[in-house]
């Protein structure tokens, strides 16, 4: 047990140390979500207007952008594993008297902390996009963002556990990240889409992360709202088999996924030589 905890904090410590020392990464991790927010917000909000009484488009995508920035930050966990393997540092880690489980959890924990930071920094933008924010909301968001980021870090590490090159990893992540983000309800409600798209969106775990974060921002009564056209298909919340997901439901889906991904990542890491 001691080896697990030691592994966790040593690895997390080093990842955080590196993050604050790399200014380019520090800046780029905030630039991308900001770009999306500005482009999509400014570009679409005039055209789309209100989705639901009182919710304009930019208020709708803003929570989604936070989820997206956490997702992208979390997948960095995998990139850092591949990076360490390519530059040899992974050997120093693997021959140290640390448990592999601890190493994986430390990687996930460190990355999650960074991703959490990135998500929270995005909150500063709330007043500029017309979203009201209260301390209570931030308190709810923190555990939520931690669950989302730890789970998705598990995905990054799982992919990375067998990848040898950064290029390969980045390519794979591009292939995964694009559909994951676009089909997660960040940019449009997942109810008013063709049936096949709806199915894919509801399988996509990120959908539940986005939904939970959005509900924290826009209020719990939101999922039930019918939408501006008076059509149930325009409802913003996520409905699975007739059940509208609450924040807690969403969190449980993501947490369950995270446990599966991290277990798989630990297994894969333990087996590698």
């Amino acid at each position, binding site marked *: 047990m001691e080896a697990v905890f030691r592994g966790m904090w040593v690895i997390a410590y080093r990842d955080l140390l*590196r993050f604050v020392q790399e200014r380019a990464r520090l800046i780029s991790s905030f630039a991308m979500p900001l770009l999306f927010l500005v482009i999509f917000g400014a570009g679409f909000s005039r055209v789309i207007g209100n989705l639901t009484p009182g919710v304009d488009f930019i208020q709708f995508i803003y929570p989604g952008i936070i989820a997206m920035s956490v997702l992208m930050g979390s997948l960095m966990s995998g990139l850092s594993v591949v990076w360490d393997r390519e530059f040899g540092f992974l050997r120093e880690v693997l*021959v140290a008297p640390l448990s592999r489980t601890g190493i994986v959890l430390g990687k996930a924990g460190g990355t999650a902390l960074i991703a959490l930071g990135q998500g929270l920094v995005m909150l500063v933008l709330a007043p500029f996009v017309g979203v009201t924010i209260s301390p209570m909301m931030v308190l709810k968001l923190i555990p939520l963002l931690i669950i989302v980021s730890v789970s998705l870090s598990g995905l990054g590490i799982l992919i990375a556990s067998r990848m040898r090159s950064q290029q390969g990893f980045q390519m794979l992540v591009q292939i995964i990240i694009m559909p994951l983000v676009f089909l997660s309800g960040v940019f449009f409600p997942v109810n008013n889409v063709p049936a096949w798209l709806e199915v894919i969106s509801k399988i996509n775990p990120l959908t539940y992360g986005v939904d939970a974060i959005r509900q924290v921002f826009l209020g719990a009564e939101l999922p039930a709202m019918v939408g501006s056209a008076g059509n149930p298909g325009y409802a913003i919340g996520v409905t699975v088999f007739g059940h509208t997901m609450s924040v807690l439901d969403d969190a449980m889906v993501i947490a369950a996924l995270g446990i599966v991904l991290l277990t798989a990542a630990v297994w894969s890491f333990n087996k590698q030589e």
Partner: protein
Amino acid sequence: MNVIEVEALTKAFGRLKAVDGVSFNVPRGEIFGFLGPNGAGKTTTINVLCTLLRPTGGRASVNGFDVVKQPRQVQRSIGLVFQDPTLDEYLTAEQNLRFHAYAYHVPGAVREERIAGLLELVELSDRRKSKVSTYSGGMKRRLELARGLLHHPQILFLDEPTLGLDPQTRRHIWEYVLALRREEDLTIFLTTHYMDEAEHCDRIAIIDYGRVVALDTPDNLKDSMGGDVVTLEAEDNEKAVAELRERYNLSPEVNNGLVTFSVPHGDTFLPKFVRNFSNRLISVSVRRPTLDDVFLKLTGHAIRDQEADSWAQLRTMMRGHS
């Protein structure tokens, strides 16, 4: 007492046996060398001993701990310097060492002092706050050496510690290693394909195609060659060969116009031979056999001093086992 015990160790990658039934013991305090060409299985053996690879067969223990069953204890007992750099280049030297200290549970009370002392030893104190990416190859290797020693290991593994370094840095690294053995009571296990480095070892195992073909002190290995190597050139080499055969019962060979043969006590043999020789001699030399000669005799081929890229390693391994 043996700190490393290896018995019939085998490691196969698919059908390729990189290590093929290797056995040896290393007593405490010894400098033990693995000498062999690239692809002979040296690095694979180290990787098994340091728990990075699981053996396919056989048994190995380090500091009394089984490498498969007690990996944590093994890891705590050893320090490593790998062939390829394993530093975090975006951190400073001090940060790299501190990471290592945390990972190996070096008590806080001695940590900073130990870090400062080791940086002093490898002469990097003035660069301790520089990022490793600004270091030269030799500086990185020195930093790795310091890091490998940080947690007071019992055994230090050095995998080709001076590969790719200039002669001056190589000599430097060796000075540290020899000083360390005196001061820290370390056992040192190293691999090399440089003959002159093998000379520094108390004992060496010559390894080729995954097998240990000889294991002894450098002097004994050289003595096993049957004495000194004499090279001479006569006006009539044929005549010299015949005389050596008939009168002294030796087996000389002629290469590139030079007659070469091994003889015990070459220094006393030579004056006697010259006095009695019926032909005119042009040149004559006597030298102690080198480990090169030993390697050539034992394996039938010279040690290949090629680049250590993985393809070359794979090819050499394939050649040996197909």
